[in-house]
């Protein structure tokens, strides 16, 4: 401890002496130190992204590419500036160079920058194209957000999510499922509890909110999309490793925004099936609370088929 303080003090003294004796060079050195410090921080930082758990490695790659391209421009510009401050110190007997314009240089820099920008944009747009294009094999899962917790709905055996209507929402039918839609009967409802998904199974998250804006965000999956009342938004992903991952709401949604958490568990086939068998369907749920009359219409239609 004492040695550290002593070393810092000695360096500080040298720095101050240097700064007083050569003020202009000291500024140049300080600017360069800011840049070298930033580079050092970047390479030694303990704070970096968490190990990815979805197919969106392309996002990480694009970030790395952007880092190298823009980082080198940042360092080049600032170090050039630091050099100028060192080299062209004020001297009252000297005049600055006089050159109002230099169109060759200006055009050169324009073209150089345009190429750099294209190099960043093109790969980014290719990955974005994948992001908005949901593969056919993806199964739909509904995520329904409300202040301040998460609900989920799985499509059940038929693989189809039943239709919902906002006006159907009441304390028995929290998802607002249509009572005449047979596809909704086997939907599995998970209210305010953990969601389990199967490893390597692509998922299209159909995102829905019934009050304010929310955002379904799991840092390890990288993906994100706001949930907007009145519409259904979506994104897709494929979990690539098992584990438990925390859901964070990433769009400010009121006083308890920070507490709007949940868990997603990525399972292997066995444990997933075990979890699935413990869940209740809409039909079972309505029957268990003695409201099976309400879904009679849907049951009849199903029977007719």
């Amino acid at each position, binding site marked *: 401890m004492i040695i550290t303080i002593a070393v810092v003090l000695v360096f500080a003294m040298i720095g101050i002496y240097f700064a007083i004796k050569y003020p202009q060079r000291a500024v140049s050195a300080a600017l360069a130190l800011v840049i070298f410090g930033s580079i050092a921080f970047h390479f030694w930082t303990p704070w970096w992204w968490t190990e990815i758990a979805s197919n969106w490695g392309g996002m990480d790659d694009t970030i790395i590419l952007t880092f190298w391209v823009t980082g080198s421009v940042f360092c080049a510009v600032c170090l050039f500036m630091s050099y100028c401050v060192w080299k*062209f110190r004020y001297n009252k007997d000297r*005049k600055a160079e006089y050159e109002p314009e230099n169109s060759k240089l200006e055009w050169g820099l324009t073209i150089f920058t345009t190429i750099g920008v294209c190099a960043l944009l093109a790969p980014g747009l290719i990955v974005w194209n994948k992001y908005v294009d949901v593969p056919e094999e993806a199964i739909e899962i509904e995520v329904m957000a409300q202040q301040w917790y998460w609900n989920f709905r799985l499509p059940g055996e038929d693989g189809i999510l039943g239709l919902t209507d906002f006006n159907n929402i009441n304390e028995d039918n929290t998802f607002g499922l249509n009572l005449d839609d047979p596809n909704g009967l086997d939907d599995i409802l998970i209210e305010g509890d953990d969601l389990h998904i199967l490893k390597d199974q692509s998922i299209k998250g159909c995102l829905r909110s019934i009050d304010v804006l929310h955002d379904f965000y799991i840092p390890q999956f990288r993906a994100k999309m706001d949930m907007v009342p009145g519409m259904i938004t979506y994104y897709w992903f494929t979990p690539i490793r098992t584990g438990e991952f925390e859901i964070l709401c990433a769009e400010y949604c009121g006083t308890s925004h920070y507490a709007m958490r949940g868990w997603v568990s990525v399972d292997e086939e066995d444990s997933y099936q075990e979890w699935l068998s413990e869940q209740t369907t809409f039909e079972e749920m309505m029957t268990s609370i003695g409201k099976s009359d309400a879904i009679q219409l849907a049951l009849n239609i199903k029977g007719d088929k």
Partner: protein
Amino acid sequence: MSADSYEDVATGKNDTIPALEVPPQDLYHAKSFITRWIFCQDAKVIGIQYAITAVSIGLVALVLSWMMRLQLAFPELVPFLGPAEYYQFVTMHGMIMVVYLLTALFLGGFGNYLIPLMVGARDMVFPYLNMVSFWVYFLAVLVLVTSFFVPGGPTGAGWTLYPPQAITSGTPGGDGLGIVLMLISLSIFVVGFTMGGLNYVLTILQARTRGMTLMRMPLTVWGIFTATILALFAFPALIVSCIMLTLDSLLGTSFFMPAIIEFGEQSEHSGGSPILFQHLFWFFGHPEVYIVALPAFGIVSDLISVHARKNIFGYRMMVWAIVIIGALSFVVWAHHMYVSGMNPWFGFFFATTTLIIAVPTALKVYNWVITLWRGNIRLTIPMLFALAFIVTFVNGGITGLFLGNVIVDVPLSDTYFVVAHFHMVMGIAPVLVIFGAIYHWFPLITGRFLHEGMGKFHFWITFLGSYLIYFPMHYLGFVGVPRRYYEMYESPFIETSTVSLNQFITIAAITVGLAQVLFLYNIITSSKFGKKAKRNPWEACSLEWQTADVPPTHGNFGAELPIVYRWAYDFSVPGAKEDFIPQNIAPSEVPDARVEKT
């Protein structure tokens, strides 16, 4: 100018003076204390009124940011801060800093003080309207302050005020007066700004002195001019969204409100579009970034040129870059909404326009640093701030290339990466320019220098301190820490070491804030006891230093308005005796100067 015309120069044949096209302006000279200092029509006094009001409310926002930082790092020190207060402080900090401080200070403050002086006018073209503009702004600030004291407190909706949460009961101030006062205050602000803004634009177009062509104007004026035009186009989107949201809140209309569940029941609203609000808000909000940035670009160009004793490199390109950035800033707004749920195909368009805007911006940066090349750099305090601006602006600008590229934005949006990015690029960078500008023009405003020792101390603490706040903060965003979290708890994916990083950032933030107290002390004492400045102490070329009196009095230029013969950057011209030729020096007075551009 070709060599064969040297004789013409010496005999004054080239001293072309354009004819007077508009008769000189009559000014109302104030007679009483009230008309002179309170309801004042002198643009310079109005500029200072704007600046004092903006800085005062800005200090409130600074203290709010300390509270937020303490909550994030040392919550035990601020036990009175619950989540509701935290979100209220976040909201008010953001709104005050962006609108009531930065916009008002750059356009209302520097715009008013500098435009007439720099273009060679006696005052703004509508001095009375200019006075009203300030008082309407002042009223907007009062309404904003009132919202702190109403039941339920100010709004805690985040500075973006997104409905539905902005006007529902789950948000602090959402079902009370807080949000309504915020929306009313913003509407009043827009009214006041429109009066001032029309004035700035018309003064620049109409009241320039003879010889001051548009392409001879200092870049400061170009920056403020373009920013004001942006504001005149962008603020209408803000005022309509404020009015419509007020109606949704008070009268139960449904412009932005879909059917939602509130208190466990279906609400009265139906059919409105929350995303429409976001489009309107960012149609204002993105140009707003450039409303703050363009004046900073302009001012920093002038600071660098004057203190490097060299003309700004590529003046014409600098002007066109300002204009192109301004125009492009209206077609990039939805890059704030990549994950908002709008049609994802928009992402392709807005990512492309956003990255295109990087090209003119980068050219400006190149031209600043090339101006330093083979300059004769005086490391005055304004120059130090200009250099620091370049570092922070480039840093914040390149992180904009992350967030503008739609797919990179997906993991980073709504994390601390965004917070770090916009503070670096539109918080710290413009504020450093404001400081540089104050150190630069203080001798003009008061006739005295700011104390240099205190100034250097203030500079190093502010620059290094704020860099230490925001540079590491980007890495919290990489980890995935979301913004607007009152408390993180223990999340397994976040290393506990981020707590110590948060503590470090908080200590740096409080230190930087305290350094501003020293700056205020410096301003107050130096305006009375500071070292006296001689006329044009920095040996600049632009007209504001050529006034009849220093500090300039009402009417600015004495009996005769100056006549302009050259651009504002004739530094170190070969053949000239001095290393600067002011704009109002006729070619015949400096016959040996071999200028290549006028």
